[in-house]
């Protein structure tokens, strides 16, 4: 009797989860692809190979790569210092790392707009140095870095914490240099969490819309990333190209998902 009951609960839960996944994940995905291909392969190809689309792809890739690079370095340093040392303001720092995920991206964009825009006291100096941040590529990169700020360090901190410092101390006592200790002792341990953090960071960077939208100025071919490009096309009622460009993002996301699963699987295997 009891067994029957738990069986019903089991299938009910699985059914609801599957239904949700279908309604909210698979159906939209399917819609994107079918809408993109509604006018045939030629129209799709035209939309995807459009000059502005290509430049949007490159800008998205550029912003993503730079954000991942910067956050990899920052994430490693931050996670390392938080877990291996004791210092004043450590709690404050761990809290601050989380700001980008708690603040709305639009507000993040506005903050940068006010910090580097015309109203800012440092604007004249930027102008004099011929540096343009707002409504230019540096602004987009900056916004992307900001919103993906915590992803890598957040993945690393728990792993480093659980490891403690004993192994590093043991290696140091045997005369190993800091670099050797990192390479031989610490890195093998954090490798999978680290890769996972990079994957998450990249996924988030590619899809970033809010903060980038505020800082970009929507200059087609110049400061348009893929998500912004989709929005512009959509607002111009050009649905097929909008969905076609979206499908590129979807494919990038699927690739990232596959990488993520592989990383996760191999990481588990290594445990």
């Amino acid at each position, binding site marked *: 009797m009891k067994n029957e009951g738990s069986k019903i609960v089991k299938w009910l839960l699985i059914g609801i989860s599957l239904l949700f996944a279908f309604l909210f994940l698979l159906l939209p995905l399917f819609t994107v692809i079918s809408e993109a291909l509604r006018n045939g392969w030629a129209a799709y190809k035209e939309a995807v190979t459009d000059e502005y689309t290509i430049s949007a792809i490159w800008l998205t890739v550029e912003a993503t790569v730079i954000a991942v690079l910067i956050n990899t370095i920052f994430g490693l340093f931050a996670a390392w210092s938080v877990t291996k040392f004791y210092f004043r303001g450590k709690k404050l720092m761990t809290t601050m790392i989380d700001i980008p995920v708690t603040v709305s991206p639009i507000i993040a964009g506005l903050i940068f707009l006010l910090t580097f825009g015309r109203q800012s006291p440092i604007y004249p100096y930027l102008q004099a140095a011929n540096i343009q941040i707002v409504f230019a590529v540096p602004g987009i990169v900056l916004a992307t870095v900001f919103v993906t700020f915590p992803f890598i360090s957040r993945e690393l901190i728990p792993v480093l914490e659980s490891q403690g410092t004993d192994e590093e101390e*043991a*290696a140091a006592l*045997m005369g190993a240099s800091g670099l050797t200790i990192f390479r031989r002792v610490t890195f093998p341990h954090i490798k999978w969490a680290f890769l996972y953090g990079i994957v998450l960071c990249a996924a988030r960077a590619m899809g970033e819309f809010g903060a980038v939208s505020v800082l970009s100025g929507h200059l087609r071919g110049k400061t348009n990333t893929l998500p912004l490009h989709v929005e512009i096309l959509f607002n111009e009622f050009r649905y097929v190209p909008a969905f076609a460009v979206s499908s590129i993002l979807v494919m990038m996301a699927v690739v990232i998902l596959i990488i993520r699963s592989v990383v996760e699987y191999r990481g588990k295997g290594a445990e």
Partner: protein
Amino acid sequence: MYVELKNINKSFGDFKASDNISFGIEKGKLIGLLGPSGSGKTTILRMIAGLETPDSGEIIIDGKVINNIPASKREIGFVFQNYALFRYMTVYENIAFGLRVRKNDKKSIDKRVKELINLVGLEGMEKRYPSQLSGGQKQRVAFARALAPNPQLLLLDEPFAAIDAKVRQELRSWLKEMILKLGVTSIFVTHDQDEAIEVADELIITNNGKIEQTGTPLEIYQNPETAFTASFFGQTSIIGDYTRFKTFSKVENASSAIVRPEFIKITKKGEVQKFRSSAVSGIVERTLFRGSNIELTVRVGDVLLTARRALDEPIISVGETVDVFIYRLFVTVGNKARIIENESLRENSIVI
């Protein structure tokens, strides 16, 4: 003195981990740093290794002040409490690590690692990872790894804490034998009195960041100098007013007395007891079978005493009134402890 600490102080915030610590260790000795948790023994070990820096004082090894020499240059072997084996390296790589860092040539590394694997009896396990080893095996790897670069000083932090009781016993004798064979000066930290007494040539007793007493285990056990050392070994009972027990001479300014179980003789009312006239009555509150003996908790007035009885003696049950005779006790005056014997023992020897 091979290793010497002079007036070492170390605080962590408000917590004073080392309070003016000074001691010396001779070359080739196996020293036990014994104290309750939080007494500062691990801090002393970590300062000698260079993992902590003393706030003041000098650490001298082989005649050189080493305070400013970084841990990596001190040539000290260290065995961590949880071994801290490199979990992504095999047994072989773990042991070879310290030698590879030194950039020794491959052949000599291989020779040394094989030598150590033989020494600790782990032949055939070279390719295993730490997660595939038992506690005792990990301990052996940690030991071999610390010894690989031929350190002049070996430090061990609670080396047996993470091993189950049966294997621990075995490893103790093994470790003592190893260290004796190699002749490397060693200091190990422990909170376990039995372990310290069994393994160490000499003990350093720490409490509250201070050193209470140093000496051989036998000396310290038989002649504790301070109240803390007197009460630290065995299941001691504290007696406020010891004069309630018969035939002890009075000590001026005595604050209390400490009794070990082996100082107490419990007899049934009808049993033969040579010192019956010097015994007092007590009531048994608890009996506990301890395997090799029976532990009794006996109340005499407001004092609870822990004593033992052999298994072949007549059984005593809870609630029974018994005779309690105390052979000797440690009387504490301030922080000092001194031993006093029951006077009836002396009278007896005169009669005979």
